[in-house]
């Protein structure tokens, strides 16, 4: 929700910038898909790399947008009870969730993805399809496997600071 996301602090600004920049790729996806369709059905030409670029942008969008989505509290919650909780209660749930779920998950994802990404860079991986995306697009995309958890964890830090403030302030 927009009203609960005051644009304070460096962490929020980072998430916001990355998310808004990445969001342009949604428009690009629509346009490029349209071009691919026109090329295929009108000119009978299949451009594999162009088609792969749509998948590439799609993946980059949701991975790089994850922190922004967290900042705006748009990751779906089961809010049967959360909805009726006091501000303080909610802050406690958030802080607990960050410590028990979000940070461990982000840490684990970044940790296990590290080698996966490093290997891709070191072998100069390119698309397996002939005429697909050349190096370095595939390693670049794999790199978001590390970037996503890092940015989400940082946004989690902003969330934690806010939660602590709420818990203190409500006393």
């Amino acid at each position, binding site marked *: 929700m927009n009203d609960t996301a005051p644009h304070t602090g460096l962490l929020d600004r980072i998430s916001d910038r990355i998310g808004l920049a990445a969001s*342009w790729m949604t428009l690009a996806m629509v346009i490029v898909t349209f071009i691919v369709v026109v090329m295929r059905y009108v000119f009978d030409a299949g451009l594999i790399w162009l088609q792969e670029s749509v998948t590439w942008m799609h993946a980059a969008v949701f991975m790089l947008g994850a922190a922004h*989505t967290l900042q705006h509290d748009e990751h*779906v919650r*089961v809010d049967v009870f959360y909805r009726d909780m006091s501000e303080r209660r*909610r802050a406690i749930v958030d802080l607990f969730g960050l410590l028990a779920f979000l940070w*461990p*998950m982000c840490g684990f994802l970044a940790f296990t993805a590290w080698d996966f990404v490093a290997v891709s860079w070191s072998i100069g991986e390119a698309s397996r399809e002939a005429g697909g995306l050349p190096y370095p697009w595939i390693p670049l995309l794999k790199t978001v496997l590390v970037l996503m958890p890092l940015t989400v964890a940082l946004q989690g830090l902003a969330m934690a600071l806010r939660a602590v403030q709420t818990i203190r302030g409500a006393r």
Partner: protein
Amino acid sequence: MEWMALLLFTAVIGLLLAGFPVAFTLGGTALVFAGAGVLTGTFNEALLSGLPNRIFGIMTNETLVAVPLFVFMGVTLERARIAEDLLETLGALFSALRGGLGVSVTVVGMLLAASTGIVGATVVTMGLLSLPTMLKRGYSPEIATGTICASGTLGQIIPPSIILVMLGDVMTTAYQQAQLTMGNFSPKTVSVGDLFAGALVPGLLLVGLYILYIVVTAIVKPSAVPPHESDGSRVSLVRVLSALVPPLALIFAVLGSILAGIATPTEAAGVGGMGALLLAVLRRQLTLERLREIMRSTLSISSMVFLILIGASLFSLVFRGYGGDDAVHQVLESLPGGIVGAVVLVMLVMFLLGFVLDFIEITFVVVPIVAPILLAMGLDPVWLGVMIAINLQTSFLTPPFGFALFYLRGVAPEAVSTAAIYRGVMPFVAIQVLALILLALFPSLVTWLPAVLYGN
């Protein structure tokens, strides 16, 4: 260690109720269980090392690329006020008809709900748009709220909804798995297009039944659905056509090209997104500010959906690691009543889970566990997908826990009592159950259209 799997499932449901975002609760809880297992030597940590590869598989899943594109199309149609226009015009057009406003709410719900995968969003939009008008026209709160809840959730099961795209993708994998376990190594496939085709007739059947109920109520009980007294302002044909034709043409073109097998869902969604942009430009509704908002919305809905998928895949990795799917397999196989018993149990469990989990979570968490087993028993994958979809929609409507009811309560005026919402939705729940029974008795309602279109 199957009991660990059961404990994991129970723990996840319990912890989700606390209200922390689903994606991280799913993944985080699974990690805690995996960690405990590694420490006690009951969980093979090597299972988790394939995780980055699995996530990269999600990122490059070509079927699911259709999701953000459909979201983009839907959000654009919504922000360009095309839905509002449609509702107003249809309402005016049908005003002569008894129950006309109710009918137009149903039709618009069917058309517009395709845009988002979140139960709440459509119900809220429909509630804000049409509840005040319906009450002003003298509709009883019961029938007004019932119609809105039912129509607001209806769009989820009518193609081209993103729910069906996701369910289709999960079904594809499940069907392959099922056939491999049956020893069929050149498996038949099921696609998102099949599911779209299969859901069309049942979806329209539901629309028909809703409309029938509203019209019959209008005739039998005019106090609940009063005839509309014309305020003298007649809508011109030009206005009707200009509000109605472009969005309808767009939706039919998108759906038609998929059903006719001309385009993949992804291609159709991309062209649909372009069409929606064009419509918005022609209506002079597209400013840079609004475009930014459309892109931002698409990004966060997409991120929300796919992070749940990532969390869910971590969950199912650990669930499988503890032998959870074997346990579920044994239970389903050993039920009295064989396949019927298994389907009834699965549907019942999903119905109950629908009280706490949204469509996306159930699709990504529960369906991959149960669908391969049920399909290996010989069920038709398209039929199963459609049954799951309608079953969940019913769950979202059922008092006192149905999702849709909470969301509508949130936007309904105080004068409308919660009890009225509950009473109002009950006939629609009955219609849903009737539809489920019909589909169970006559599976060809689902399988006929895909067979005609794709001949399998």
